[in-house]
Protein backbone atom coordinates (compact mmCIF):
# COMPACT_ATOMS: atom_id res chain seq x y z
CA UNK A 1 0.00 0.00 0.00
CA UNK A 2 1.41 3.37 -0.95
CA UNK A 3 2.32 5.86 1.75
CA UNK A 4 1.37 9.52 2.16
CA UNK A 5 3.80 11.97 0.55
CA UNK A 6 5.77 14.32 2.83
CA UNK A 7 3.71 17.23 4.05
CA UNK A 8 3.65 19.97 6.62
CA UNK A 9 1.23 19.59 9.49
CA UNK A 10 -0.19 22.45 11.56
CA UNK A 11 -2.07 22.14 14.83
CA UNK A 12 -3.75 25.48 15.43
CA UNK A 13 -5.33 26.26 18.80
CA UNK A 14 -8.24 28.29 17.44
CA UNK A 15 -10.56 28.54 14.43
CA UNK A 16 -9.16 31.95 13.61
CA UNK A 17 -5.62 30.58 13.55
CA UNK A 18 -6.72 27.62 11.41
CA UNK A 19 -8.38 29.90 8.82
CA UNK A 20 -5.35 32.18 8.84
CA UNK A 21 -3.02 29.28 8.03
CA UNK A 22 -5.13 28.37 4.98
CA UNK A 23 -5.28 32.02 3.86
CA UNK A 24 -1.51 32.33 4.17
CA UNK A 25 -0.46 28.96 2.71
CA UNK A 26 -2.98 29.10 -0.13
CA UNK A 27 -4.53 26.29 -2.15
CA UNK A 28 -3.38 22.69 -1.89
CA UNK A 29 -3.97 22.16 1.81
CA UNK A 30 -6.55 20.07 3.62
CA UNK A 31 -8.21 20.17 7.00
CA UNK A 32 -7.73 17.04 9.06
CA UNK A 33 -10.27 15.71 11.55
CA UNK A 34 -10.31 11.93 12.12
CA UNK A 35 -8.36 11.21 8.94
CA UNK A 36 -10.35 8.10 8.06
CA UNK A 37 -11.27 9.57 4.67
CA UNK A 38 -8.29 11.89 4.14
CA UNK A 39 -5.50 9.41 4.89
CA UNK A 40 -7.21 6.73 2.79
CA UNK A 41 -7.44 9.23 -0.09
CA UNK A 42 -3.68 9.87 0.28
CA UNK A 43 -2.95 6.16 0.19
CA UNK A 44 -5.46 4.92 -2.37
CA UNK A 45 -6.13 7.86 -4.64
CA UNK A 46 -2.73 9.52 -4.57
CA UNK A 47 -4.05 12.70 -2.95
CA UNK A 48 -1.01 14.65 -1.78
CA UNK A 49 -1.89 17.81 0.08
CA UNK A 50 0.96 20.30 0.47
CA UNK A 51 -0.03 20.83 4.06
CA UNK A 52 -2.57 19.58 6.54
CA UNK A 53 -4.31 21.62 9.23
CA UNK A 54 -5.22 19.30 12.10
CA UNK A 55 -8.31 20.66 13.86
CA UNK A 56 -8.16 18.35 16.86
CA UNK A 57 -6.32 20.89 19.05
CA UNK A 58 -8.99 23.55 18.58
CA UNK A 59 -10.97 23.68 21.84
CA UNK A 60 -14.76 23.25 21.96
CA UNK A 61 -15.13 21.56 18.58
CA UNK A 62 -16.25 18.26 20.04
CA UNK A 63 -18.96 17.13 22.40
CA UNK A 64 -22.74 16.91 22.46
CA UNK A 65 -24.76 19.58 24.21
CA UNK A 66 -28.49 19.74 24.97
CA UNK A 67 -29.35 23.43 24.68
CA UNK A 68 -31.93 25.31 26.74
CA UNK A 69 -34.18 25.78 23.70
CA UNK A 70 -34.43 22.01 23.20
CA UNK A 71 -31.98 21.84 20.33
CA UNK A 72 -28.99 19.52 20.31
CA UNK A 73 -25.54 20.74 19.28
CA UNK A 74 -23.04 18.15 18.10
CA UNK A 75 -19.52 19.54 17.75
CA UNK A 76 -18.00 18.83 14.35
CA UNK A 77 -15.11 16.86 15.84
CA UNK A 78 -17.38 14.58 17.85
CA UNK A 79 -16.51 11.03 16.83
CA UNK A 80 -19.02 8.65 15.31
CA UNK A 81 -18.49 6.39 18.32
CA UNK A 82 -19.40 9.28 20.64
CA UNK A 83 -22.58 9.92 18.64
CA UNK A 84 -23.41 6.20 18.69
CA UNK A 85 -23.00 5.91 22.47
CA UNK A 86 -24.15 9.37 23.61
CA UNK A 87 -26.95 9.02 26.20
CA UNK A 88 -28.58 12.22 24.90
CA UNK A 89 -28.58 11.02 21.28
CA UNK A 90 -29.66 7.48 22.20
CA UNK A 91 -32.56 8.81 24.25
CA UNK A 92 -33.81 11.52 21.90
CA UNK A 93 -32.91 10.22 18.46
CA UNK A 94 -32.06 6.52 18.69
CA UNK A 95 -32.12 6.22 14.90
CA UNK A 96 -29.36 8.85 14.62
CA UNK A 97 -27.21 6.88 17.10
CA UNK A 98 -27.99 3.78 15.07
CA UNK A 99 -26.95 5.46 11.81
CA UNK A 100 -23.60 6.41 13.36
CA UNK A 101 -23.15 2.80 14.50
CA UNK A 102 -23.44 1.70 10.86
CA UNK A 103 -20.20 3.47 9.89
CA UNK A 104 -17.13 1.22 9.48
CA UNK A 105 -15.77 -0.52 12.57
CA UNK A 106 -15.35 0.64 16.18
CA UNK A 107 -11.72 1.47 15.31
CA UNK A 108 -12.92 3.70 12.48
CA UNK A 109 -15.69 5.24 14.57
CA UNK A 110 -13.22 6.13 17.33
CA UNK A 111 -11.49 8.39 14.79
CA UNK A 112 -14.10 9.37 12.19
CA UNK A 113 -15.94 12.56 13.09
CA UNK A 114 -19.47 13.63 12.26
CA UNK A 115 -18.22 16.96 10.89
CA UNK A 116 -15.54 15.33 8.78
CA UNK A 117 -18.12 12.99 7.36
CA UNK A 118 -20.44 15.88 6.43
CA UNK A 119 -17.61 18.04 5.02
CA UNK A 120 -16.46 15.11 2.91
CA UNK A 121 -19.98 15.03 1.39
CA UNK A 122 -20.07 11.39 0.35
CA UNK A 123 -23.52 10.58 -1.08
CA UNK A 124 -23.65 7.34 0.95
CA UNK A 125 -22.73 8.86 4.36
CA UNK A 126 -24.88 6.98 6.89
CA UNK A 127 -25.62 9.81 9.31
CA UNK A 128 -26.61 12.26 6.55
CA UNK A 129 -30.13 10.91 5.90
CA UNK A 130 -30.87 10.80 9.65
CA UNK A 131 -29.64 14.40 10.04
CA UNK A 132 -31.66 15.54 7.00
CA UNK A 133 -34.77 13.87 8.42
CA UNK A 134 -34.17 15.81 11.66
CA UNK A 135 -33.78 19.05 9.62
CA UNK A 136 -30.32 19.62 11.04
CA UNK A 137 -28.31 22.74 10.34
CA UNK A 138 -24.56 23.25 10.14
CA UNK A 139 -22.49 26.01 11.70
CA UNK A 140 -19.64 27.23 9.56
CA UNK A 141 -16.87 29.56 10.73
CA UNK A 142 -14.62 31.63 8.51
CA UNK A 143 -12.75 34.90 8.28
CA UNK A 144 -16.03 36.83 8.08
CA UNK A 145 -17.51 35.20 11.19
CA UNK A 146 -20.03 32.43 11.57
CA UNK A 147 -22.93 31.41 9.36
CA UNK A 148 -25.56 28.70 9.56
CA UNK A 149 -26.96 26.64 6.71
CA UNK A 150 -29.50 23.85 6.46
CA UNK A 151 -27.75 20.58 5.83
CA UNK A 152 -29.80 20.30 2.63
CA UNK A 153 -28.20 23.50 1.26
CA UNK A 154 -24.76 22.49 2.53
CA UNK A 155 -24.35 19.47 0.21
CA UNK A 156 -23.67 20.52 -3.38
CA UNK A 157 -22.48 17.32 -5.04
CA UNK A 158 -20.27 14.31 -4.41
CA UNK A 159 -17.42 15.69 -2.29
CA UNK A 160 -18.75 19.24 -2.79
CA UNK A 161 -20.14 21.53 -0.11
CA UNK A 162 -21.16 25.17 0.18
CA UNK A 163 -18.02 25.97 2.22
CA UNK A 164 -15.18 28.21 1.03
CA UNK A 165 -11.69 26.71 1.26
CA UNK A 166 -10.79 28.55 4.46
CA UNK A 167 -14.13 27.91 6.14
CA UNK A 168 -14.51 25.30 8.88
CA UNK A 169 -17.55 23.29 9.83
CA UNK A 170 -17.84 23.74 13.61
CA UNK A 171 -21.08 22.07 14.63
CA UNK A 172 -24.24 20.24 13.60
CA UNK A 173 -27.39 21.63 15.18
CA UNK A 174 -30.54 19.55 15.49
CA UNK A 175 -33.52 21.79 16.21
CA UNK A 176 -35.90 21.03 19.07
CA UNK A 177 -38.04 18.06 18.07
CA UNK A 178 -41.66 17.24 18.87
CA UNK A 179 -41.87 14.91 21.92
CA UNK A 180 -43.76 12.33 19.85
CA UNK A 181 -41.12 12.19 17.13
CA UNK A 182 -40.12 8.68 16.13
CA UNK A 183 -37.66 7.62 13.48
CA UNK A 184 -35.76 4.88 11.78
CA UNK A 185 -32.63 4.52 9.68
CA UNK A 186 -32.17 1.53 7.44
CA UNK A 187 -28.84 0.90 5.81
CA UNK A 188 -29.38 -1.49 2.97
CA UNK A 189 -26.30 -3.50 2.12
CA UNK A 190 -25.88 -7.24 1.67
CA UNK A 191 -23.14 -7.36 4.30
CA UNK A 192 -24.01 -6.91 7.95
CA UNK A 193 -20.96 -4.77 8.72
CA UNK A 194 -18.06 -2.96 7.12
CA UNK A 195 -19.76 -1.90 3.90
CA UNK A 196 -21.05 1.31 2.36
CA UNK A 197 -24.80 1.74 2.02
CA UNK A 198 -26.25 0.59 -1.30
CA UNK A 199 -29.25 2.60 -0.18
CA UNK A 200 -29.83 4.47 3.08
CA UNK A 201 -33.29 5.56 4.20
CA UNK A 202 -34.09 7.68 7.24
CA UNK A 203 -37.58 8.68 8.32
CA UNK A 204 -38.74 10.93 11.14
CA UNK A 205 -42.44 11.05 11.95
CA UNK A 206 -44.64 12.84 14.42
CA UNK A 207 -47.52 10.47 15.07
CA UNK A 208 -50.59 10.96 17.23
CA UNK A 209 -52.19 8.13 19.22
CA UNK A 210 -54.10 6.95 16.16
CA UNK A 211 -51.01 6.78 13.94
CA UNK A 212 -52.05 9.94 12.17
CA UNK A 213 -48.93 11.46 10.74
CA UNK A 214 -48.75 15.13 11.75
CA UNK A 215 -45.30 15.56 10.19
CA UNK A 216 -43.15 13.35 8.04
CA UNK A 217 -39.55 13.64 6.88
CA UNK A 218 -37.98 11.10 4.57
CA UNK A 219 -34.33 11.29 3.51
CA UNK A 220 -32.29 9.06 1.23
CA UNK A 221 -28.61 8.26 0.97
CA UNK A 222 -26.51 6.76 -1.84
CA UNK A 223 -29.18 7.36 -4.48
CA UNK A 224 -28.38 10.85 -5.78
CA UNK A 225 -25.31 13.13 -6.06
CA UNK A 226 -25.99 14.30 -2.50
CA UNK A 227 -28.00 12.86 0.38
CA UNK A 228 -31.56 14.08 -0.35
CA UNK A 229 -34.98 14.65 1.13
CA UNK A 230 -37.95 13.01 -0.62
CA UNK A 231 -40.65 15.71 -0.34
CA UNK A 232 -43.18 14.04 -2.64
CA UNK A 233 -43.03 10.86 -0.57
CA UNK A 234 -43.42 12.96 2.58
CA UNK A 235 -46.53 14.61 1.10
CA UNK A 236 -48.12 11.19 0.53
CA UNK A 237 -48.21 10.45 4.26
CA UNK A 238 -48.54 13.84 5.91
CA UNK A 239 -51.86 14.29 7.72
CA UNK A 240 -52.81 10.69 6.88
CA UNK A 241 -53.19 7.58 9.01
CA UNK A 242 -50.07 5.50 8.45
CA UNK A 243 -51.07 2.09 7.07
CA UNK A 244 -49.07 -0.50 5.20
CA UNK A 245 -50.77 0.53 1.96
CA UNK A 246 -49.88 4.20 2.54
CA UNK A 247 -46.28 3.30 3.43
CA UNK A 248 -46.10 1.38 0.16
CA UNK A 249 -47.35 4.39 -1.78
CA UNK A 250 -44.79 6.64 -0.05
CA UNK A 251 -42.09 4.10 -0.94
CA UNK A 252 -43.19 4.11 -4.59
CA UNK A 253 -43.03 7.90 -4.61
CA UNK A 254 -39.55 7.94 -3.03
CA UNK A 255 -38.40 5.43 -5.64
CA UNK A 256 -39.58 7.81 -8.37
CA UNK A 257 -37.91 10.82 -6.71
CA UNK A 258 -34.43 9.37 -6.21
CA UNK A 259 -31.70 9.66 -8.83
CA UNK A 260 -29.47 6.63 -8.42
CA UNK A 261 -26.51 5.62 -10.55
CA UNK A 262 -25.19 2.19 -11.41
CA UNK A 263 -21.79 1.37 -9.93
CA UNK A 264 -19.75 -1.53 -8.60
CA UNK A 265 -22.19 -2.06 -5.72
CA UNK A 266 -25.51 -1.97 -7.48
CA UNK A 267 -27.44 -1.09 -10.61
CA UNK A 268 -29.56 2.06 -10.59
CA UNK A 269 -32.71 -0.05 -11.11
CA UNK A 270 -31.97 -2.19 -8.06
CA UNK A 271 -31.24 0.86 -5.92
CA UNK A 272 -34.52 2.42 -7.01
CA UNK A 273 -36.46 -0.73 -6.15
CA UNK A 274 -34.72 -0.92 -2.77
CA UNK A 275 -35.54 2.73 -2.01
CA UNK A 276 -39.20 1.79 -2.43
CA UNK A 277 -38.97 -1.29 -0.23
CA UNK A 278 -36.77 0.27 2.47
CA UNK A 279 -38.82 3.47 2.69
CA UNK A 280 -41.94 1.42 3.30
CA UNK A 281 -40.13 -0.73 5.87
CA UNK A 282 -38.59 2.29 7.64
CA UNK A 283 -41.98 4.01 7.95
CA UNK A 284 -43.62 0.91 9.40
CA UNK A 285 -40.70 0.21 11.77
CA UNK A 286 -40.72 3.80 13.04
CA UNK A 287 -44.45 3.63 13.72
CA UNK A 288 -44.49 0.17 15.27
CA UNK A 289 -41.19 -0.35 17.06
CA UNK A 290 -39.27 2.87 17.54
CA UNK A 291 -36.39 2.99 19.96
CA UNK A 292 -32.90 1.61 20.19
CA UNK A 293 -32.41 -1.89 18.84
CA UNK A 294 -29.50 -4.31 18.95
CA UNK A 295 -27.59 -4.78 15.71
CA UNK A 296 -28.92 -8.31 15.37
CA UNK A 297 -32.47 -7.00 15.33
CA UNK A 298 -31.47 -4.12 13.06
CA UNK A 299 -30.27 -6.74 10.59
CA UNK A 300 -33.63 -8.52 10.65
CA UNK A 301 -35.90 -5.53 10.52
CA UNK A 302 -34.70 -4.40 7.13
CA UNK A 303 -36.85 -7.11 5.59
Amino acid at each position, binding site marked *: *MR*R*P*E*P*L*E*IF*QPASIREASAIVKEKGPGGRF*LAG*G*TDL*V*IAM*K*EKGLSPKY*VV*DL*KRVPNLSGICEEADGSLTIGALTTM*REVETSPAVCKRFPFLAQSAAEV*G*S*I*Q*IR*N*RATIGGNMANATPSADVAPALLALEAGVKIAGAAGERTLNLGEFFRGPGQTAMLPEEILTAIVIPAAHPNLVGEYIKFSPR*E*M*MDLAYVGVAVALVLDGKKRCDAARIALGAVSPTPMRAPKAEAVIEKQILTEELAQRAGDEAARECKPISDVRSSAEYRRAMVGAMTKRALLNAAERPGPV*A*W*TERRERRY
Partner: protein
Amino acid sequence: MTKKIQITLNGKKTSVEVQAHRLLLDLLRDEIGLTGTKEGCGTGDCGACTVLLNGKPVNSCLILSGELDGAEIVTIEGLKIGPELHPVQKAFIQDGGAQCGYCTPGMLMMSKALLEENPNPTEEDIRFALSGNLCRCTGYAKIVQAVQDAAVELRRMKTEG
Protein backbone atom coordinates in the same frame (compact mmCIF):
# COMPACT_ATOMS: atom_id res chain seq x y z
CA MET B 1 8.82 17.96 7.78
CA THR B 2 10.33 16.43 10.91
CA LYS B 3 8.96 17.19 14.29
CA LYS B 4 9.89 16.19 17.82
CA ILE B 5 6.97 14.66 19.69
CA GLN B 6 6.46 13.27 23.18
CA ILE B 7 4.43 10.10 23.45
CA THR B 8 3.75 7.57 26.15
CA LEU B 9 4.36 4.20 24.53
CA ASN B 10 3.39 1.09 26.46
CA GLY B 11 3.58 3.06 29.68
CA LYS B 12 6.95 4.68 28.98
CA LYS B 13 7.37 8.36 28.18
CA THR B 14 9.47 8.74 25.06
CA SER B 15 10.49 11.52 22.81
CA VAL B 16 10.74 10.72 19.10
CA GLU B 17 11.74 12.61 16.02
CA VAL B 18 9.05 11.93 13.39
CA GLN B 19 8.26 12.90 9.85
CA ALA B 20 4.75 14.34 9.93
CA HIS B 21 3.44 12.19 7.06
CA ARG B 22 4.71 8.88 8.47
CA LEU B 23 1.93 6.55 9.53
CA LEU B 24 1.75 5.55 13.18
CA LEU B 25 1.98 1.94 11.94
CA ASP B 26 5.33 2.64 10.23
CA LEU B 27 6.59 4.68 13.16
CA LEU B 28 5.97 1.73 15.46
CA ARG B 29 7.32 -0.97 13.16
CA ASP B 30 10.16 0.65 11.24
CA GLU B 31 11.48 3.37 13.52
CA ILE B 32 10.77 2.06 17.01
CA GLY B 33 11.08 -1.63 16.11
CA LEU B 34 7.80 -2.84 17.59
CA THR B 35 6.79 -5.24 14.82
CA GLY B 36 3.91 -6.92 16.68
CA THR B 37 1.47 -4.49 15.07
CA LYS B 38 0.67 -5.77 11.56
CA GLU B 39 -0.35 -4.20 8.30
CA GLY B 40 -3.18 -5.95 6.50
CA CYS B 41 -5.33 -3.93 4.12
CA GLY B 42 -3.89 -0.49 4.82
CA THR B 43 -7.34 1.09 4.52
CA GLY B 44 -8.99 0.56 7.88
CA ASP B 45 -11.01 -2.50 6.94
CA CYS B 46 -9.11 -5.42 8.48
CA GLY B 47 -8.02 -4.27 11.95
CA ALA B 48 -4.62 -6.02 11.91
CA CYS B 49 -2.95 -2.71 12.81
CA THR B 50 -5.21 -1.99 15.81
CA VAL B 51 -3.51 -0.21 18.72
CA LEU B 52 -4.94 1.73 21.64
CA LEU B 53 -4.62 5.49 21.23
CA ASN B 54 -5.53 7.37 24.41
CA GLY B 55 -7.27 4.22 25.58
CA LYS B 56 -9.33 3.65 22.44
CA PRO B 57 -8.82 1.05 19.71
CA VAL B 58 -7.90 2.67 16.38
CA ASN B 59 -6.36 1.68 13.04
CA SER B 60 -2.69 2.74 13.20
CA CYS B 61 -2.49 2.58 9.39
CA LEU B 62 -4.68 5.70 9.14
CA ILE B 63 -2.94 7.99 11.62
CA LEU B 64 -0.23 10.50 10.73
CA SER B 65 2.69 10.76 13.14
CA GLY B 66 2.46 14.53 13.02
CA GLU B 67 -0.83 14.37 14.95
CA LEU B 68 0.55 12.44 17.87
CA ASP B 69 2.27 14.86 20.25
CA GLY B 70 1.12 14.02 23.79
CA ALA B 71 -0.56 10.77 22.78
CA GLU B 72 -0.68 7.65 24.87
CA ILE B 73 -0.23 4.50 22.78
CA VAL B 74 -0.48 0.86 23.77
CA THR B 75 0.57 -1.85 21.31
CA ILE B 76 0.50 -5.63 21.56
CA GLU B 77 3.98 -5.42 23.13
CA GLY B 78 2.43 -3.52 26.05
CA LEU B 79 -0.42 -5.92 26.71
CA LYS B 80 1.32 -8.16 29.23
CA ILE B 81 0.60 -7.53 32.90
CA GLY B 82 4.06 -7.54 34.45
CA PRO B 83 5.74 -10.79 33.38
CA GLU B 84 2.38 -12.51 32.81
CA LEU B 85 0.48 -12.68 29.54
CA HIS B 86 -2.82 -10.80 29.62
CA PRO B 87 -5.89 -13.06 30.12
CA VAL B 88 -7.00 -12.41 26.51
CA GLN B 89 -3.60 -13.64 25.30
CA LYS B 90 -3.82 -16.76 27.48
CA ALA B 91 -7.37 -17.46 26.32
CA PHE B 92 -6.46 -17.14 22.62
CA ILE B 93 -3.64 -19.67 23.18
CA GLN B 94 -5.79 -22.05 25.21
CA ASP B 95 -8.80 -21.95 22.85
CA GLY B 96 -6.93 -22.02 19.56
CA GLY B 97 -8.03 -18.47 18.77
CA ALA B 98 -4.92 -17.99 16.62
CA GLN B 99 -3.99 -20.00 13.56
CA CYS B 100 -1.62 -18.18 11.21
CA GLY B 101 -1.51 -15.43 13.84
CA TYR B 102 -1.40 -12.41 11.55
CA CYS B 103 -4.68 -10.92 12.73
CA THR B 104 -4.07 -11.89 16.35
CA PRO B 105 -2.37 -8.71 17.67
CA GLY B 106 -5.26 -6.62 16.34
CA MET B 107 -7.83 -9.08 17.67
CA LEU B 108 -6.19 -8.99 21.10
CA MET B 109 -6.06 -5.19 21.29
CA MET B 110 -9.71 -4.91 20.26
CA SER B 111 -10.72 -7.66 22.71
CA LYS B 112 -8.90 -5.94 25.56
CA ALA B 113 -10.70 -2.68 24.73
CA LEU B 114 -14.06 -4.44 24.55
CA LEU B 115 -13.62 -6.16 27.91
CA GLU B 116 -12.63 -2.93 29.61
CA GLU B 117 -15.84 -1.31 28.39
CA ASN B 118 -18.06 -4.35 28.80
CA PRO B 119 -16.78 -7.00 31.25
CA ASN B 120 -19.64 -9.39 30.48
CA PRO B 121 -20.28 -9.31 26.73
CA THR B 122 -22.72 -11.59 24.92
CA GLU B 123 -21.61 -13.46 21.83
CA GLU B 124 -23.38 -10.82 19.73
CA ASP B 125 -21.55 -8.02 21.58
CA ILE B 126 -18.24 -9.73 20.79
CA ARG B 127 -19.09 -10.22 17.13
CA PHE B 128 -20.15 -6.58 16.87
CA ALA B 129 -16.95 -5.34 18.55
CA LEU B 130 -14.72 -7.54 16.38
CA SER B 131 -16.47 -6.73 13.10
CA GLY B 132 -13.52 -4.54 12.10
CA ASN B 133 -11.00 -7.35 12.67
CA LEU B 134 -10.80 -9.85 9.85
CA CYS B 135 -9.48 -13.38 10.29
CA ARG B 136 -9.17 -15.62 7.25
CA CYS B 137 -8.22 -18.79 9.18
CA THR B 138 -10.40 -19.50 12.16
CA GLY B 139 -13.99 -18.85 11.11
CA TYR B 140 -14.17 -16.73 14.30
CA ALA B 141 -15.81 -19.39 16.53
CA LYS B 142 -12.67 -19.96 18.59
CA ILE B 143 -11.88 -16.26 18.73
CA VAL B 144 -15.33 -15.53 20.16
CA GLN B 145 -14.88 -18.41 22.61
CA ALA B 146 -11.50 -17.02 23.68
CA VAL B 147 -12.94 -13.58 24.36
CA GLN B 148 -15.72 -15.15 26.43
CA ASP B 149 -13.19 -17.17 28.44
CA ALA B 150 -10.98 -14.12 28.93
CA ALA B 151 -14.03 -12.23 30.21
CA VAL B 152 -14.65 -14.92 32.82
CA GLU B 153 -11.00 -14.84 33.92
CA LEU B 154 -10.91 -11.03 34.10
CA ARG B 155 -14.05 -10.98 36.21
CA ARG B 156 -12.54 -13.63 38.49
CA MET B 157 -9.34 -11.60 38.87
CA LYS B 158 -11.40 -8.53 39.69
CA THR B 159 -13.47 -10.19 42.42
CA GLU B 160 -10.34 -11.72 43.92
CA GLY B 161 -8.72 -8.29 43.77
